[in-house]
Structure formats: C-alpha cells, structure tokens
C-alpha cells in the first residue's frame, strides 16, 4: 500500500498529465480535474479494491467508480492510465480524432476502466445506484463510489436519485460532491445557490461527511470513516471542499479555468510548479 507521501507524488504527476493533455489540444477542463486529483488518486491507488487488467465491465467482486461530472475527463484518464488500465502513452490522443479518450468519457470506444458515458450532467448518481443494487442482488459485498460536480446538483435527476437511494437503503454507495463552489458562468452562489448542502443531503436521508479534498491524509481518513458507515441502511455522501485549479497558482481561486487550456507560457509556468515524479508520458 502506498504511503501518503507516495500518493502525493502520484498526484503531482497526474496534475502534470492534466495540464499537458489539455494544452496539447487547446481544449478540455483543467480546473475541476486539478481540484479532484487527490481524491481520485486516493481512490484508485489505495481506497478501492479493483483490478485494472484484464478489465471486466461487470466488475464482480470489485469496487466500482462512476464519474458523473464527465468533463473532468483529463484527471480520470490520467488516473486510469497511471493505475494500469491502459498505456499512459495513449494520453497523447486525448480529444483527438479516432481516440478512445473522447472529450467526455465513454464506453463506446472500448476504453478500459470506463463503465458509463458521462458528460450530460446529473445522470451518474442514478447509474451508481443501479450498479449498487446489482451488487446487492449478486450478493457482492464490494462498494460503489461516485463523484459529482457541485454545479451538477442543479440538475433535477440528482434529487430523484437522492430520494430513491435513501428510500431503498442503498448503503453500499459512497458518493462524493466536488464542492469547489464554481461553475462555468461564475460562482455557485451567483449562478444558482445550492444553499446548505449538508442540511439538504441529510434531509434527503443520507449520511453526510465533509472533508478537504486537497489534503491526502484527510481524504484517506474520511474514506475509511465512510467505509465503516456502509451497510448501516443509509447512502453516504461526502461533501468534498476542493480548490478548482489546485496545484497551479494562476488557475486557483476562480471559475475562469473551468474549461480553458493554458498557452505555452502558462504551461511552462504550471509545470514548474508540479514535480515530475513518475515520468511524463
């Protein structure tokens, strides 16, 4: 099992991958990707029990992860490649013609590690719940994890799913909200305020935890707490505070880097802040 420091080193490499991938095609979503890097590294390199090869869509007796906010595909692709699902060299094809690494993740091109297409927001929680129910039907004690954007909570389907999960005691599901409080048009508070998120999820019958999603130690301990809360009749939601653009100073503290690629100069500046730890692709 990797240590916290080792996980942080992996996260640094993945942040390099993200800015390089987005820069190479001058498109993609670096802000949320950088913000969620630590969480996804924790999941794929420590928290989840999963098998990268051979990839099995059904994932029986494995923990499964669903990305609902599909636009943070750069971090998802890099984490999948770096954890062995496919060759890291393929990251070079991100968003290019004939690539398996589409702008938003899809099963359609047969990319190992992807179990559901996402991009159109609000759908992933329902999917995760369905997968969790099949785990139960199959007497499979593995867990389902899902990640959602905070802006995505403005979609009504999320709340349909929230109601259903509590009513049906989906207690093998650990969901997480990337609470960076930014969306494309500005801050969440300005665009459409989510109000008190903790109160909302609790009112919907979920067990709610909170954590700083950019502190590896805190992520690991919170995920451990969450695991211990499974099997007790409630779905679990983690409200994860992150900084959009985390790790690259000029991308932090604003919504402006949600879906903008860095230019050559900005890339150099970003890479200077991110240690190359495993080796660039």
């Amino acid at each position, binding site marked *: 099992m990797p240590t916290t420091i080792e996980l942080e080193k992996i996260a640094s490499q993945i942040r390099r991958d993200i800015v390089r991938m987005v820069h190479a095609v001058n498109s993609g979503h670096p802000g949320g990707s950088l913000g969620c890097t630590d969480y996804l590294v924790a999941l794929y390199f420590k928290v989840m029990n999963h098998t990268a090869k051979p990839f099995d869509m059904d994932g029986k007796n494995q923990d499964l992860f669903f990305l609902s906010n599909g636009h943070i595909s750069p971090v998802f692709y890099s984490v999948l490649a770096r954890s062995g699902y496919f060759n890291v060299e393929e990251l070079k094809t991100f968003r290019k013609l004939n690539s398996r690494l589409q702008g938003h993740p899809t099963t359609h091109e047969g990319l190992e590690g992807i179990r559901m297409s996402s*991009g159109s927001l609000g759908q992933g929680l329902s999917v995760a719940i369905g997968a969790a129910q099949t785990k139960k039907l199959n007497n499979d004690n593995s867990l389902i994890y899902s990640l959602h954007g905070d802006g995505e909570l403005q979609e009504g389907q999320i709340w349909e799913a929230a109601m259903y999960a509590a009513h049906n005691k989906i207690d093998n599901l650990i969901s997480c909200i990337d609470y960076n409080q930014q969306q494309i048009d500005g801050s969440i508070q300005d665009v459409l305020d989510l109000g008190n998120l903790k109160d909302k999820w609790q009112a919907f019958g979920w067990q709610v935890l909170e954590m700083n999603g950019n502190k590896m130690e805190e992520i690991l301990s919170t995920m451990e707490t969450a695991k211990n809360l499974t099997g007790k009749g409630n779905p679990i939601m983690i409200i994860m505070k992150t900084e959009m653009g985390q790790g690259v100073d000029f991308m932090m503290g604003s919504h402006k880097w949600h879906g903008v690629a860095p230019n050559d100069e900005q890339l150099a500046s970003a890479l200077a802040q991110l240690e190359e730890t495993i080796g660039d692709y």
Partner: protein
Amino acid sequence: MKKYTYTEKKDTRSGFGDGLTELGRENPNVVALCADLTGSLKMNQFEKENPDRFFQVGIAEANMIGIAAGMTIGGKIPFTGTFANFSTGRVYDQIRQSVAYSDKNVKICASHAGLTLGEDGATHQILEDIGLMKMLPGMTVINPCDYNQTKQATKAIANHKGPVYLRFGRPAVPVFMNEDFIIGKAITLNEGTDVSIFATGHLVWEAIQACEILEQKGINAEIINIHTIKPLDEKAILASANKTKCIVTAEEHMINGGLGDSIAQVISRNNPMPIEYVGVNDTFGESGTPAQLMEKYGLSADAIVKAAEKAISRKS
C-alpha cells in the same frame, strides 16, 4: 386472401405483462423497474412473484433509466415500464447517454403509445416515440401488433444483447397472430400483387380489414407486418415492393420519423416508386375514445383502402 379470425380481444400491454411474468420464472437476471404505473403496465404479477427483482422508482423516469443502465453492470437485464411518452420524450437524454451511447442492455418497455391511449389527450399520446428511438445508434425498435406478438417480443428481447425500445398499447384489440416472432424479420400475412401494405402495431389488424375490402374491389394487396422498425427487414420490403410496384405504410405514429419514413429511405435508395402514408400528419392528438380518434386522424381500414387505391393509381 388468407383469413384472419379472432375469438377474443386483449390489450397488448397484457402481452407484455404476461411475457415479463414468464421471463421472471425463466431468467433470474431479468429485473423490472416501474415509475408508478405498475397496474397500467401489467407488471403486478412479476412484482408479486419477484419482489426482490422489482424496483418501484416512483414518478421519476429519468432516475429509472439511469438506475436501469447501472443495473446492467454485473449482468442484470432491466426492463423499465411506463407510458410511451414518459419512456422516450421525457428521458431522451438519459436514454441517449446512459443507455444507447453506453451500450447498455436495457429494455425500455412503453405502454399507452399513440392515440389509442384515448381520453387522457395529447399530453400522454406520444406520436413521435418511434422516431426518437430509431434515431439512436444501436437501438432496436419493436412495435408488436397484438397480445400474442407482444408477449413473444417481450420474451425475445431478453435474449437480445443491447438496448431495445418495445412499444405497445392500452386498448383491447383482436388476438390473431400465431406466427413466430423473430426480431428484425417481417411477417407476410397475405401475398398479393397489386400493392404492398406495410403495417406496424395496432394498424396491422386494420391492414387486414383493408385487404378484405380491397379484395372485394378486385385489388390484390400484400400485407406485411413490420413489427421491428429497426433494424428494418429491407430484404422483405424490397422483395414485396419490387413485385407490387407501389406501397402503403400504416402506423399509429407521426408520419414524420415513423415506419413510413424508414421504408421510404429503403425504396428511394433501391427502387423508387409511389408510397402513400397512413399515419398522423404533423399534429397533436386530443381527447376522445380510441375508436373516435383513430377515425378522426385517419388510422383506419378505410384510410388504408383509400391510400392503396391512390398508390396504385400513381403507378406509371
């Protein structure tokens, strides 16, 4: 012509319900989801026999489609049930992304399709669902014509890997089909030489009635049941059309985007000839009894007869 008779009328949704019940007994991977219309979809018996494999999702169709998509991961075969309008138009993006684009083995089963839903009116009478579903890459679209065929289709789609849209309805209609159902294989009900009538769903019985009227007029019509709109049995369609040299299509659906459109594509690419369309022409439905609505909107045996005569008159 070959005589088709019936001894009873039954609703096609009961064919779905009974097919699903049998599937529940035969295939442990079949699961069913319903959005607060269990009775309307005739899913009660499945629910009673398989409470652990039946999922009531409430009035939340988008969530139902997403859950169904997720349930396929791990090998379940989910059948979702609600009205056709809420099975398609309401959840188009969920089906598009989470089911079709994700290649998930979900069976979207839709009752109360078309005008024959009746008195509830246009909010519930979707006439665009075949078009919506057939445009999705990889989606199979099936519109059976009676109780027997709906039951057979329900069972057949469980063994078909991939997303399926199964469309059926509310009114009791003649039970007359005894032919085997194979996905994508058209069924010739009457061989003829003067006009090919391609009908789907509730219009198949009307086409048979039309055929009898045409026979009295000395017109020999070929009647083909196109239960599978996608993939379309192009071979059967062309074989018939090449023989009769003119076509009528008949469906309880909008002409735009329906079966007729699909057949016109095949014909225009291969052997252009006159086609007349029996369907709803770019308008919403309204309240009324099913019989009144079918009459008013021209979805009747008489309308098919007129269309056949017109198609024949246009032959060069």
